[in-house]
């Protein structure tokens, strides 16, 4: 019998203007990345509340990645600058609590960077898969 391959669950928050469009471009160019990545569309990376990220982990996500416009290119001029600070602080706090820092990432992906989007997702999935299941953050009640 074949051992079932471990599949990580990745939640990706993508800003509507750059990264979500970048993900669409990856699709247009048929650039493959694992289906483990599920994208949630937000208007701007600065819309992502740390609570969403914690909630994802709580409900069993193995990794969370946040994608936004490159600094300086934010559709709303400054949103991703705030994201950068907030996420730097949140991730550093998660690390402080002993949660693997490889499970979180912020990546700037422009609407033209379909290839970067696919490469980033491939890389992130590999990185999270190497860590195995997220045991430190999940809420056991929520796991089937």
């Amino acid at each position, binding site marked *: 019998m074949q051992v079932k391959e471990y599949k990580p669950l990745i939640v990706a928050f993508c800003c509507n203007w750059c990264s979500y469009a970048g993900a669409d471009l990856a699709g247009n160019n048929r650039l493959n990345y694992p289906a483990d990545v599920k994208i949630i569309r937000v208007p701007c990376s600065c819309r992502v509340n740390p609570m969403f990220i914690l909630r994802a982990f709580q409900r069993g996500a193995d990794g969370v990645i946040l994608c936004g416009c490159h600094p300086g290119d934010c559709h709303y001029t400054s949103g991703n600058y705030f994201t950068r600070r907030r996420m730097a602080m949140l991730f550093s706090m998660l690390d402080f609590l002993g949660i693997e820092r490889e499970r979180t990432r912020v990546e700037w992906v422009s609407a033209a960077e379909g290839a970067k989007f696919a490469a980033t997702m491939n890389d992130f999935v590999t990185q999270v898969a190497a860590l195995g299941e997220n045991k430190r953050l999940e*809420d056991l009640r929520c796991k089937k």
Partner: protein
Amino acid sequence: MQKITKEQLIERASALLRDGTVNHVLGWAQGEFDYDITPAVFSDESSLTGNFVWNDFCGANFSKYLVSKCRTLEGKILVFLKPCDTYSFNQLLTEHRFDREKVYAIGIPCEGMADIDKVKAICGDGISSIDCSGEKLSVTSIYEDSPISVNTADVLTERCVNCKSKKHVAYDELLGDEGDILDSARFDEVAKIEAMTPDERFAFWQNELSRCIRCNACRDVCPACTCEVCVFNNPKSGVENKAPANSFEEKMFHIIRAFHVAGRCTDCGECSRVCPQNIPLHLLNRKFIKEMNECYGEYQAGETVGSKSPLTDYTLEDLEPGEVFDRGDINA
């Protein structure tokens, strides 16, 4: 022993009540024991002389009380502020949480507050009274014949050992001497945890936070937690939760709480003081403060009114979240 005496405070407060400058006094009152002092509102001279106390156990930071008291009490309120309380006072003003016009703030010097658990560790249980008037604490216990003498320095609370400032950053009137901003070692403990391996850190916090009983005392006392409705009480927030159900929820609670007060926390240490489970909650807040200081420049919440916290600000050259880890590997 505190340098300024209870009598001096009562005398000044009485004078201000008498001449009508203030109508109420926010001060400390005797609890069941000498060491469980509670905040109280005094509205006349006789209650002041009867119940007002000031000793080494008057840790409570009154700034937060102003938010509700300014709404419910008529007239002007006198508040006594220790140096660390003045930072919370300013921070609350920055956030427009109370009416400055309704408050008369008297800055009072503080020699550090005593930690009853540390006293108990030395003297054991059964403490019946503590006399703070001498150089040393004189502790009377039902199990001992004569009072035990305890060095104040040995029983200071953690926040006072690592006191960040003896300077008052806000007041209408100052009693006693003004102190200085101190070079404290308050981030040493954070650095120690940072130096652990991720597994050790996880184990450390698992051990600490699993004791949490979600009594919400940390939140309720925190001068940064003055929300009209707390997200943990709000069914629409998605994180509403009244009791810890498992190992993650208290982590979620404490991470979110620390994040909500990040950049606004003045490091007054009230959260750890009131925690019945003695969880070092201040370390979470200090981690944020240390991180923000290192990444975005020194910032002390409440130092001035109207300052912009690092999380509501940015520069074009800020570190990327990944780079925050790379700057001198903290796991090395």
